[in-house]
């Protein structure tokens, strides 16, 4: 759930410093799986970090190609997640290979994960996350355990910024559609 009152002025860039732990103590909203991570000028999102199981780096890397192919085959396959951007990163700073999953989206954290798991189950894509240490073996039958894994591996931002704050991907697309229609209309009037 979001509060619309201070989210109306997209013309005014906004930054938000977030307390350690990821929540504003006086404004915590209860979600179904625990406190909800707040909406910021950069919308909802997360940065999930987890260690890759030994020898699985290539499997994880190949999964990028699977997602690319799935979106090419059906551009709406990830639509339920209401994403702006996804970034998947593999890195090793000396403590073993780690996977970072950063997403910026318009739905809340828990719903994103629920929807993502539904997509994995529905499309039959085996999830990349089974290659991560600590990911529940029974993920197909135990959604709460999956969400617990993600909540535990989420590294909350301490600063988020939006050049056009709080604007949803839908609104961006709507504005671009209006621009395209207007441009077409002006062409017709030449």
């Amino acid at each position, binding site marked *: *759930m*979001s*509060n*619309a009152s201070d989210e109306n002025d997209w013309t005014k860039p906004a930054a938000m410093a977030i307390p350690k732990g990821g929540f504003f103590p006086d404004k915590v*909203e*209860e*979600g*179904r*799986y625990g406190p909800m991570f707040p909406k910021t000028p950069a919308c909802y999102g997360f940065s999930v970090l987890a260690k890759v199981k030994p020898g699985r780096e290539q499997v994880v890397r190949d999964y990028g190609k699977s997602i690319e192919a799935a979106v090419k085959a059906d551009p709406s396959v990830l*639509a*339920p997640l209401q994403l702006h951007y996804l970034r998947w990163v593999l890195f090793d700073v000396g403590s073993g290979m780690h996977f970072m999953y950063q997403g910026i989206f318009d739905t809340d954290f828990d*719903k994103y994960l*629920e*929807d993502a798991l*539904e997509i994995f*189950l*529905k499309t039959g894509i085996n999830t990349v996350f089974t290659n991560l240490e600590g990911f529940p073996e*029974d993920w*197909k*039958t*135990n*959604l*709460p355990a999956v969400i617990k894994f993600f909540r535990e591996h989420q590294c909350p931002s301490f600063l988020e910024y939006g050049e056009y704050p709080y604007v*949803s991907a*839908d*609104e961006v697309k709507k504005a671009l559609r209006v621009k395209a229609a207007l441009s077409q209309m002006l062409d017709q009037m030449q």
Partner: protein
Amino acid sequence: MLEFEDIQHILLTRAPALTGRYEFLSFKDPTGARAWLAEILPKVQSAKAMRESVNAEKRWITIAFTWNGLRALGVDEVTLATFPQEFRDGMVARAKMLGDTGANAPQHWVDKTGSPDLHAIAILFARDATERGRCAVDHANLIAECKGVEVLSSLDLEATPPYEYAHDHFGYRDRLSQPSIEGSGDEPTPGSGAPLKAGEFILGYPDESGVVPLLPKPDVLSRNGSFMAYRRLEQHVGKFRNFLREHGKTPEGQELLAAKLMGRWRSGAPLVLAPDKDDPALGADPRRNNDFNYKDQDPQGYAVPLGSHIRRMNPRDTAASMNRHRMMRRGATYGTHLPEGAADDDTERGIAAFVICASLIRQFEFAQNVWVNDKNFHKLGNERDPIIGAQDGTLEYKIPKRPIRRTIVGLPTFTSVRGGAYFFVPGLKALCWLAALGKTS
């Protein structure tokens, strides 16, 4: 194959009842509690028994327990820990997330269902008031014989006139959109979608994900059971009618406004199919009254506003993974009918409903949290469900209309939460297992 002889009838059937009674029970003594259960157990009909005897029968009984109730019956801690977190927490602990705050908060509930001493519910659906009275006396006599079993509160159900069809106190026709379960023998009405996998509503079967989800243990306890959210919702009928009069200039305008809040005319006719004028014949026709969708037929909400009750409770083809969030609804109205033109009196009246689902967190709580009370549902920004949402007088309601939409600011509270709880509805074998707990241990 569904085990109809083991599944409590409420999961699969709707009793042809005009009245009924809910009794909320507390157990002070496990032996007495199990004695009560053993005595009432033969009266609890399975879906099979109910179907076979429906024409001859006059009353139908369902038994369900809270998590505290299972403990009070003598269920051990290891078993109790296998139940899902949200059921263990109970509805009171989940109140903030459900939107049950302010006047709707559990401390204001009137039926003691918010108490940790709530352990069980006995649901009676009866053909008429005489049968209800007879059963109430029988049950009172049984309770008097069972040590430590107490009635925390009770609620008598009353259908509201006219009795020919089910409707709520606001006048809206009810029971129009209900999912059907694969293998149940029920055919979905046109527009209701394909039958859903049984595991969405009954434990122990594959659900729409294709697998059997993790279940409470042992299997004998969970198999053929389900979870059930109880909601006692008071309907402020006078306030609702005043609102229609205030915002609708003519009787036709008031009817249209009532329809815009719900998404259907009070006759049941869906606005998608009858956008400008009521069509009572359509509303009463189950072959047609649910046969519509939104993505193609009403994407902007010109017929059914994006924030209306039926869009929020069942977004149909505009929600992701819709089949994972369906719910089975049961229940009835309570309280006397408020005649048209009468002011609100001091009588409480409303809907005492059950939402039955295999996962409270994925189905009932999802609907309540993500659909009913999310101010930004469909990017609306500042709205909640106009009928059952947590309204505080600061929210609005937008009715798309050409050329300019209509916005009503400061929507009043038409419905208040007066009670609620989470129950587990065991199968009949599980009820036997529970009744025999003292003997086995």
